[in-house]
């Protein structure tokens, strides 16, 4: 009988994924066998430990990658039989995702705010407002499955960012999405909103996944392979059946742009961000976006780089629309979480400006500018949502912007931190956001996309107006007598807000090290 050769796996390169996957599986076992009493603490510690271990492994792996010979800077190699690319951008994204996940896990583990209970519902099967729900609360039940679920989602994100194979990418997409759908529905307060968010996210997510899969099929039909490298070769050599390829690109892009939160695939964002438990919103706003942007860039630049003249104009339009809709949409929002959702849409647009700038050379490249932007955006986003967690009234978080009036008088440090994140979103100098915007705009400018840059600057001016208005309301208006109570910040949330604030300033004042890291990550390896 013929031997079927065993696949070669570079265990040292995919170690971070393995570590994380193993810890997630262990989490499921813990869920089964650890008694209810200590379970929350055990799960939280294991999850945080697992993320730290994976982060350590990522750094260890990163130190072992070699710089490749070639015209452009690149490091790392393709692993796992061409399914994954452990290259500079992947490793940077992994590190970023793990850091963001670490911060999010701290928010997941925060129990001081809700009277000793986490932000997650006690028993998801109970109908909102039912006696069962009250009973679950009375028995102080908590869903500790959130930790393994989040780890699985994180694993999916890391896979997504590193996939060099369309099928692998689809699997990663589902691995990252399914746990998030569940997590979205688990809020302790405002259960109906949360369940609605989960359902919407699931339906639309499944819908967009179908588009993605259809796109994979069409591209396979064109290229005869799933590997991004094979697709690139086919794009370079085949000139007939272009419409098949382009239809494939468009459908693939739908799935990716959906996760990025780009217009016109953004409609889910405000509803889901608002309804999901705030720690989950923080996690997915920062994490999913990072993974999806890198995956999108990889697909566009690696697989379809040879056809860039065909797809670029359409993506310029998407980037422009996304910036506009995000910035304009945020103006009318009266809810902090919705406002942050629209702002995340706008940021997706700014990042896309950098990504579709598609430049190499010795300046800042589109990939490294996007990576830095994602870092700046990610820390500020998690920090902002952490602040949202702290501003509460009797029924939980008080997300109505009106109730935030005069917050600066009552909690100057907290409001100051929020103001800092707003300023970073607005791209005011000496915050991380400024360097981030500067990076993507100069990458796009170098790529000759000056109309998009001008539009971007205009839009960021509009957006800045809005962010500063929030700061103004917090600091310059009288606090309302019926304003929110401020929860005693738990140690975890305090750590998150502090770290995010320090990082936001540090990345603005001394962006050198991280910018350098993003720069050294180099190009995608195919």
């Amino acid at each position, binding site marked *: *009988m*013929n*031997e*079927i*050769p*065993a*696949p070669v796996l570079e265990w040292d390169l995919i170690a971070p994924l393995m570590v994380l996957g193993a810890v997630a*599986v262990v989490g*499921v*076992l813990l*869920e*089964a*066998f650890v008694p209810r009493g200590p379970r929350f603490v055990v799960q939280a510690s294991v999850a945080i430990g697992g993320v730290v271990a994976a982060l350590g492994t990522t750094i260890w792996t990163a130190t072992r990658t070699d710089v490749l010979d070639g015209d452009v800077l690149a490091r790392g190699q393709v692993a796992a039989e061409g399914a994954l690319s452990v290259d500079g951008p992947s490793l940077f994204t992994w590190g970023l995702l793990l850091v963001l996940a670490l911060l999010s896990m701290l928010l997941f583990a925060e129990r001081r705010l809700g009277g000793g209970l986490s932000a997650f519902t006690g*028993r998801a*099967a*109970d*109908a*909102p*407002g*039912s*006696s*069962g729900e009250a009973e679950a609360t009375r028995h102080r039940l908590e869903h500790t499955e959130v930790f393994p679920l989040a780890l699985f989602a994180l694993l999916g994100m890391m896979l997504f960012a590193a996939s060099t194979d369309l099928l692998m990418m689809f699997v990663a997409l589902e691995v990252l999405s399914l746990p998030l759908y569940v997590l979205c529905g688990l809020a302790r307060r405002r259960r109906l909103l949360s369940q609605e968010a989960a359902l919407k996210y699931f339906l639309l997510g499944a819908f967009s996944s179908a588009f993605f899969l259809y796109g994979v099929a069409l591209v396979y039909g064109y290229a005869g392979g799933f590997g991004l490298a094979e697709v690139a070769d086919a794009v370079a050599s085949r000139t007939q059946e272009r419409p098949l390829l382009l239809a494939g690109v468009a459908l693939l892009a739908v799935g990716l742009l959906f996760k990025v939160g780009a217009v016109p695939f953004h409609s889910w964002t405000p509803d889901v961000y608002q309804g999901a438990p705030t720690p989950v919103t923080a996690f997915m706003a920062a994490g999913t976006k990072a993974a999806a942007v890198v995956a999108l860039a990889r697909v566009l630049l690696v697989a379809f780089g040879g056809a860039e003249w065909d797809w670029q104009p359409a993506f310029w339009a998407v980037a422009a629309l996304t910036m506009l809709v995000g910035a304009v949409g945020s103006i009318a929002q009266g809810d902090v979480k919705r406002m942050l959702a629209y702002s995340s849409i706008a940021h997706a647009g700014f990042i896309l400006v950098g990504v579709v700038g598609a430049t190499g050379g010795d300046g800042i490249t589109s990939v490294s500018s996007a990576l830095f932007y994602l870092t700046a955006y990610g820390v500020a986003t998690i920090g902002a949502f952490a602040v949202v967690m702290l501003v509460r009234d009797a029924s939980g978080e008080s997300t109505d912007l009106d109730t935030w009036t005069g917050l600066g008088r009552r909690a100057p440090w907290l409001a100051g931190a929020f103001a800092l994140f707003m300023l970073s979103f607005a791209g005011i100098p000496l915050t991380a956001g400024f360097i981030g915007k500067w990076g993507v705009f100069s990458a796009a400018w170098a790529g000759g996309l000056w109309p998009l840059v001008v539009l971007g600057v205009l839009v960021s001016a509009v957006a800045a107006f809005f962010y500063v208005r929030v700061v103004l309301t917090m600091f310059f208006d009288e606090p309302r007598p019926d304003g929110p109570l401020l929860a005693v910040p738990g140690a975890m949330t305090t750590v998150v807000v502090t770290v995010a604030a320090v990082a936001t300033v540090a990345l603005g004042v001394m962006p050198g090290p991280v910018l350098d890291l993003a720069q050294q990550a180099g190009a995608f390896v195919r």
Partner: protein
Amino acid sequence: MGEYAPILVLGAIAAGFAIFSVAIAPLTGPRRYNRAKLDRYESGIQPTPVPEGGGRIPVKYFFTAMMFIVFDIEIVFLYPFAVAFDALSWFAVLAVLLFLVNITVAYAYEWRRGGMAWD
């Protein structure tokens, strides 16, 4: 086009079978309706009533169905593995073992959390 002919034939047979099955059932089968049969989630027994004003919604069937699908898929993977076992290396054995462990972990979770208890 010639090479696609078998596919077309297969499609035609499948469609014909589907139409035939649906069309023949009302003509040949007996018709004995009762309330349970006409209801949603028909399975021959009375559906569990939805509690007044919310409360917990039983998902017993759902659990069982999920378990079935999980083990079904396990078989889908194990069968070809068993057929080609002698051609595969030790790597495959390890991979399948890992796969079984993962399935078992999920199984253990469901078992411990009472997913198998009917009442």
